[in-house]
């Protein structure tokens, strides 16, 4: 689906799950957790890249 012409707002999208009630709060928590995990994975990848590219002193 293409919704590009309307800025939905990331926080408002997650909030909708919470507004959906108890089941939604669980969905929001899972989405939140997935986002955090994604961030951590990205950070780890970046660290590995940094380690390989930083020149070592000789």
């Amino acid at each position, binding site marked *: 689906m293409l919704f590009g012409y309307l800025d939905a707002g*990331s*926080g408002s*999208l997650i*909030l909708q799950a919470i507004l959906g009630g108890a089941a939604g709060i*669980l*969905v929001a928590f899972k*989405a939140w957790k997935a986002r955090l995990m994604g961030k951590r994975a990205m950070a780890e990848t970046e660290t590995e890249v940094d380690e390989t590219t930083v020149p070592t002193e000789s």
Partner: protein
Amino acid sequence: MHRPDPGSFRDPASHVVFDGERVLRLLDDRGLRGWHALSSTRFFEKAVADGRLIDAKLVDNDDSSVAGALEHPRVPFISYPYEWTFTMLKDAALLQLELLADALGEGLTIKDATPYNIQFIDGRPVFIDIGSFEAYSPGEPWIGYRQFTRQFLFPLMMRSDLGVPFQPWLRGNPEGPTAAEMRNLLGTGRRLRPSTMLHVSLQARMEERMSGAAVRDDLKSAGFNAELILANVRKLHKLVEGMEWSGQGVWVGYQTCDHVGRDREAKGDFLKTALDRHRPGRVLDLGANDGYFSEISLRSGAVAIAVDGDEGVLDAWYRKGTRAAIALSDLTNPSPAQGWAGTERPSLTDRARPDLVIAYGLIHHLIYTASVPPATVVDWLASFRCPVVVEFVSPRDEMVGKLTANKTEAELHHGREQDDFERLLRDRFEIVASTPLGEGTRTLYSLTNR
């Protein structure tokens, strides 16, 4: 040759053009898929039959650059949310939510949530943007939620919770207040109510923390579904339904003034004669108040466009179920042309296009309260280029005495006497008829343009 609607360009899938008096909606492939999905539902047929959704029919299209074309009936008068009263915006909000709930029930969604997709026809809100419907993709959230809060919910909260008119805000910023702005407006005490905490404070907080994050795939993977949208929509519907505004205004109760009751019948008869003479298709009632003369115009078969600057009096009239087109606007500062390129939303005057103008009980307020010179008022009436019925009020009228109680002669424009006024009228109009009212300080004129 098609003339594009200057206000219909945001959705790449669907935009409106005019072909003479015909209103056409041109669709690309995605828009056409949306139309097929919508038109095959039971909900569409019922919503059109109920008058909640504008009718649409697929028509022949010889433009190879578009996938399909729909034809809509023409909306008699386009108005904007900053010209609506509290109850009008509330009814529009409820319609938006009800249509979304009905659409989701048949596997569709509405991809935005703006009051600009709703117009008032015969006094009822009608959803006009058929292009906003499309198939619901499982796991997708309601993309229009934030827009709904900014353009419907928060403006309604401004009126019902704070007693502040939302129209100046929406006229200044059609996107409506952000959640953070609304949080600041509401103050600490009101932020503690559950509905405010969720839709205002929590939304503001989450927007600040998650700006620019891509979360739709995360939501889908986490099990988001249409039931969650429906639960939110049902709660929003209940919240909006419970919002009230007492509808107070300076001009509520004006009809109980002595001169109003005394002159109403004579003014109505004078108007009926003008309506019989000119047979106008569209009547513009300036300073319409409780709509007494707009109702007479409606009964003559005309479309009545009623403009007044008092929200309380217009809201009370709207709630009675009038078929007139209502536009809340201060006539000394009517809605200008604005939006993208200054053409997206035409001015109130450009949209009115009257065949007859009523200016009863109005021009003395322009001359004495707003300090508009009498000659300028007459020029303005002539600028509508159509017949006018106007009420002249002499400087010796009791009401004018009240309006000028704290003004000196030096603070008033010259040319306020009836002789001066008639001379100005004759420069611009033919005086077809005139009749004095009541105690002789007021006179009605029926005018045609020179």
